[in-house]
């Protein structure tokens, strides 16, 4: 929406660095004595309050817990029973998924496998020389006209998170297959066995030794870490591992990941502590940027929960890191971004916005859609677009937001 003024940003940073030192007025000795005195006092205070409250509250807590448990578990058990009947009827039991069984369904499946030269003509690089973004749209652009796809009826998707080579972000990667070809457990098994992230230009897959099982009839996946699983020591790697799990929220109908090490519930992380489950149901707002490995990927930028959609779109004018590029070029501006209803978000381009039917703008539209998706929108509508079509998208029609991000095809997974 708005252009950024680098000088002002630097000026603000400079002012912050100019803040004076605020010194403590209490002496080292008096501080030490205060600390020691408080350390002596604290356990006593706690003992008194805990005892009295414990004695008073124990029966109340017990009765309340039983009531809450009954209230929660009864409808859940009922729901599970009715769901499991349906699942048993439709679930297809197949042997372990083989490579040739994996089919990636993308808008461009046929085109990708047929003729790259045709694609190069169909989706040429936008000719605006000299910008950093365009320099990055090099060898891989033509073979990769889309960064999203949609899971259709009779299909399912599994999404895993893989860190970038720099380890500064987690890239969600989606696999979409027919329901009849594999169960979700088989897909995860296949992914763990065969994913070759180096060929994708990404860092190592952190969950390679973790097995995933979907609890039948529920929206829960159990992630089983082997007993000897080497947990990362650094905070950043630990966060990347947990974020790789979080990314699985984009898998069809999954809202909880239960963690266990061996057969024991929970995994004890060195920094985060014991984690029993990750609730994926919470709304996570995101904007997106473009990452270049051996191909392009949409990479989420986590946002604070109070971020507005306008602010999220504003984030997409910049990128954070050497291998990343902003998804919205500065010469594309919106005069308004408005909710039409709770499902639809409308964008109106400013008259002078320059857009062409090329990969750069397909990526932009898809990044915008996935950002809107993280704000719970299902459709987008664009007004005053300078072009009628951008890749597969008719800019004059209501566009359904794709379900899957960074779909990956079999050859990219490497030979087994």
């Amino acid at each position, binding site marked *: 929406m708005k252009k950024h003024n680098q000088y002002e940003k630097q000026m603000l940073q400079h002012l912050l660095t100019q803040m004076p*030192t605020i010194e403590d007025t209490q002496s080292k000795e008096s501080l030490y004595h205060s600390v020691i005195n408080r350390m002596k006092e604290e356990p006593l205070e706690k003992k008194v309050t805990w005892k009295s409250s414990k004695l008073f509250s124990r029966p109340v807590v017990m009765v309340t817990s039983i009531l809450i448990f009954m209230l929660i578990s009864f409808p859940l058990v009922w729901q599970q029973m009715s769901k499991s009947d349906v699942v048993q009827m439709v679930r297809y039991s197949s042997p372990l998924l083989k490579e040739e069984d994996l089919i990636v369904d993308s808008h461009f499946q046929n085109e990708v496998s047929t003729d790259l030269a045709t694609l190069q003509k169909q989706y040429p690089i936008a000719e605006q020389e000299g910008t950093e973004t365009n320099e990055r749209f090099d060898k891989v652009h033509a073979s990769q006209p889309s960064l999203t796809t949609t899971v259709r009826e009779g299909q399912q998707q599994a999404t895993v998170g893989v860190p970038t080579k720099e380890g500064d972000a987690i890239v969600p990667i989606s696999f979409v297959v027919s329901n009849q070809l594999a169960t979700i457990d088989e897909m995860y098994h296949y992914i763990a066995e065969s994913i070759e992230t180096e060929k994708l230009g990404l860092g190592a897959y952190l969950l390679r030794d973790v097995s995933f099982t979907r609890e039948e009839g529920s929206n829960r996946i159990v992630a089983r870490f082997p007993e000897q699983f080497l947990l990362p020591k650094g905070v950043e790697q630990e966060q990347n591992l947990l974020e790789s799990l979080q990314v699985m929220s984009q898998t069809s109908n999954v809202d909880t990941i239960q963690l266990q090490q061996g057969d024991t519930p929970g995994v004890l992380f060195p920094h985060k502590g014991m984690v029993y489950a990750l609730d994926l149901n919470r709304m996570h707002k995101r904007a997106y940027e473009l990452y270049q490995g051996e191909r392009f990927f949409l990479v989420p930028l986590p946002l604070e929960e109070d971020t507005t959609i306008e602010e999220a779109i504003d984030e997409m004018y910049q990128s954070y890191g050497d291998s990343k590029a902003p998804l919205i070029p500065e010469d594309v501006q919106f005069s308004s971004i408005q909710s039409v209803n709770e499902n639809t978000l409308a964008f109106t381009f400013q008259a002078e916005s320059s857009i062409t039917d090329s990969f750069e703008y397909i990526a932009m539209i898809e990044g915008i859609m996935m950002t809107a998706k993280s704000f719970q929108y299902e459709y987008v509508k664009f007004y005053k677009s300078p072009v009628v079509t951008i890749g597969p998208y008719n800019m004059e029609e209501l566009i359904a937001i794709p379900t899957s991000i960074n779909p990956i095809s079999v050859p990219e997974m490497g030979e087994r």
Partner: protein
Amino acid sequence: MKAVFQELYEKYHQDVYQFIYFMVKNREQTEDLVQEVYIKIMKSYHNFKGESSEKTWIFSIARHVTIDHFRKQKRKRDKLLEFFDWGDKWESIQDDAPLPDEIAEQKESIQTMYRCLDQCTVDQRSVLILRFIQSMSLKETAEILNMTVSKVKTTQHRGLKVLKRLMEQQQGGESHEEA
């Protein structure tokens, strides 16, 4: 115990004090919270495994202590507001707090920025203080705040945007008053 205290005091006291002060902006509360930080450090120092640096470990304790303080304050404030129905008056009481001498001696833009920092979220403020007032790296900041580096970057960017808007508003208000 005293030896541990002395060592940590020499290495980190000023920085920890400064961080907490800029978060809570009150000397008495800062002194109280700093004591709490030392208590927590000394109670768990033997458990420190060196999986993060000592510095980021100590700062993450300082951050937790500060956040606990904000939560307690919020609970107290909510109770008071409920009881007395003060409405917006609470905000004006907060805004009118006098500037500390160190800030009052500075140029006006720094004084304005000091006040504007309050309007950022706790996360934004933490990032801005650690990154620019404490000169910490993105990685150190991420470790202390238990965020990813990219989250630190976006929070920093959004924090600076909030400051920019507020500084411009203040400037506009001042020039309007002058006119």
